[in-house]
């Protein structure tokens, strides 16, 4: 096959690799106190937030990049990264219809029309472009119920008391190397607050898009579900195809107050790099939830993109009778590496957690599940069930499982099951004998393998995730 044809084939797989031409307001590359002050100034932030950033930065300087994950990459030069890049607004926006047409076009191409009348589904979207929220749909409709949803920067302006109270309450500024970096330089993200007893009338969703070159994306998401409230939140992301790696170090904090329920779903489709492992996003993300009495937090993730994924959406089950769930499908094809899993920290009595992890490895992909179940000494009657399944496609890939279990209360029940299987020639032949092409057969087998997780996703997302799994595996067999 000619080089061109090969290139065409590999590029076909990633449909979102285009670049949008917008004028950007960028800081010079490099990180120092001045850059942090610049970001804070650009955002017109209150003093407490600047102080918080600077504290995080000072702490970060004393920290070392973690090396324990089962991933390999060349050291990141933190001084060559641009820490602030925002599409330059032509003027102050009065409404969504005034969003820069180029940006609107970009999101339309991604299947996220920003005009509310074009949206058929009942989903409110916050569109984040290079770390800056450019539009949020259905704000007015949400406000009727008292739901606050929009960009983090706006929330800082309009609801500083909520930000000051909850920011860093689940992931402290100095939590880990990447979280500290994020705390220092985050430029935007989404914020949601669901008032007491309110069932959010629609799905909330943030769509993250990296566009600019050499920039890092550091967004911060904070969701607070007040007592007895309920919210379902979706997150999607894509990036252009570039030969160099780009860093994405986000932080997501979820606060579920007593009796609240948060369902957080992610379909992660950052550019994974090419077949030889050139380019792609380094996805080093900290996601954590705190659940108070009777609260429930459910993480569902479908991870198909990124060159490297380092991500452990976790639950601190603080309150008695709180519930944590983690459903994950992680796919590593070509040269992708994924080290992902969860932490379930049982603090309260009768806390329950469920972990279902499905790892799919193909090509030269390396997939590791890393999970911690910790039962504290006061967590009487706590229960955990973990299931980790790995599926291998081909004989050049790898699957690894690193379960950590710490139990300090004798009444706890902890179960762990793990399986590893391979797509067998027999299965493929069976499907082909029934008229399915090889690729459709692989896609069907993989989707069957991942079904337990996919059924946790909201309907529309599940369909997209299914297609994505099939697409990400094109050419992985035969």
């Amino acid at each position, binding site marked *: 096959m000619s080089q061109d044809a090969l290139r065409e084939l590999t590029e076909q797989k990633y449909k979102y690799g285009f670049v949008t031409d917008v004028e950007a307001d960028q800081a010079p590359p490099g990180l120092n106190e001045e850059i942090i002050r610049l970001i804070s100034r650009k955002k017109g932030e209150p003093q407490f937030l600047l102080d918080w950033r600077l504290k995080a930065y000072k702490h970060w300087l004393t920290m070392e990049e973690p090396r324990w994950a089962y991933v390999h990459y060349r050291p990141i030069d933190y001084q060559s990264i641009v820490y602030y890049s925002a599409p330059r607004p032509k003027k102050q926006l009065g409404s969504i219809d005034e969003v820069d047409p180029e940006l609107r076009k970009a999101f339309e191409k991604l299947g996220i029309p920003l005009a509310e009348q074009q949206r058929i589904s009942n989903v409110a979207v916050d569109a984040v472009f290079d770390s800056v929220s450019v539009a949020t749909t259905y704000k007015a409709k949400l406000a009727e119920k008292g739901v606050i949803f929009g960009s983090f920067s706006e929330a800082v302006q309009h609801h500083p008391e909520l930000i000051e109270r909850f920011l860093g309450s689940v992931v402290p500024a100095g939590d880990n190397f990447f979280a500290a970096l994020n705390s220092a330089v985050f430029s935007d993200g989404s914020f949601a607050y669901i008032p007491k007893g309110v069932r959010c009338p629609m799905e909330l969703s943030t769509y993250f898009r990296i566009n600019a070159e050499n920039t890092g994306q550091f967004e911060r998401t904070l969701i607070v579900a007040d007592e007895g409230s309920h919210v379902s939140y979706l997150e999607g992301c894509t990036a252009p195809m570039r030969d160099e790696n780009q860093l994405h170090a986000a932080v997501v904090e979820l606060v579920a107050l007593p009796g609240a329920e948060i369902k957080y779903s992610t379909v992660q489709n950052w550019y994974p790099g090419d077949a030889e492992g050139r380019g792609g996003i380094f996805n080093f993300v900290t996601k954590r939830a705190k659940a108070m009495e009777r609260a429930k937090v459910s993480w569902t993730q479908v991870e198909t993109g990124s060159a490297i994924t380092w991500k452990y959406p976790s639950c601190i089950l603080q309150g008695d009778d709180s519930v944590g769930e983690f459903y994950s499908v992680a796919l590593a094809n070509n040269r992708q590496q994924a080290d992902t899993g969860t932490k379930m920290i049982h603090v309260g009595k009768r806390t329950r957690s469920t972990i279902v992890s499905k790892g799919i490895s193909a090509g030269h992909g390396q997939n590791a599940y890393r999970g911690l179940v910790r039962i504290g000494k006061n967590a009487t009657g706590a229960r955990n069930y973990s299931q980790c399944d790995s599926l291998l496609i081909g004989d050049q890939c790898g699957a690894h499982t690193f379960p950590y279990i710490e139990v300090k209360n004798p009444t706890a029940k902890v179960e762990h099951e793990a399986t590893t299987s391979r797509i*067998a*020639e*027999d*299965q493929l*032949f*069976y*499907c*082909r*004998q*029934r*008229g*399915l*092409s*090889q690729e*459709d057969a692989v896609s*069907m*087998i993989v*989707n*069957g*393998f*991942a*079904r*337990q997780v996919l059924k946790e996703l909201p309907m529309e997302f599940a369909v997209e995730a299914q297609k994505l799994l099939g697409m990400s595996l094109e050419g992985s067999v035969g």
Partner: protein
Amino acid sequence: MLRIQNLKARIGEKEILHGLDLTVNAGEVHAIMGPNGSGKSTLASVLAGRENVEVTAGSVTYLGQDLLALAPEKRAAAGLFLGFQYPVEIPGVANLYFLRTALNAMRRARGEEEVDAMDFLAIAKEKLKLVKWDQSFVQRGVNEGFSGGEKKKNEILQMAVLEPKLSILDEIDSGLDIDALRVVADGVNALRAPDRAFLLVTHYQRLLDYVKPDRVHVMAAGKIVKSGGPELALELEKTGYAGWVPERHGAGARP
């Protein structure tokens, strides 16, 4: 419909089929009988296009096409169905979804319109009666946790839905109790039609009590060694294969 001439095939270094000839006409039911290791299942694999079997000589013409030149899925779309001796499990993929996807893949390949979910449900309901199943079976994963007999019935259900022109059933009767055997036989009989043909690969006469074949062939050491009418099966039942199987000479034998 199917014409096999001087077919030779091997798995790895070992030649299994040593020049096999067979012609099956539309509307006919043929039974291929023979002892273990005679190459019956290998023949079924070659016809369906399994890649671990290498054809070294001969030709297979199916409905005027060179069958051996087609990919397995193209053969399926052309109406060739293999009922597996050991059907595989595909966990998490609902039977109903699998069947609809299969049917639509074939219809697409033939340039026909796809069947939507509602219409397909009606088709499936009708066909389920054939195997005396309720709907709970089609919601389960493909063969997931099925007993041996259930797996074989599922093959018959798939055949009934896909309505193939040529059905090759590889030891569909093995491991079945008498009730299941009846269900399987009824499934085959219900599909018999002037434009369809069947190739039943079996050890025993038992199935042929319920499905009356037009032709019976005895296979031994990679060849058809004797052909006849239904009475040949009865004869075999009495005498066993001993008389038909040549001494273990030549190919396949130990040095």
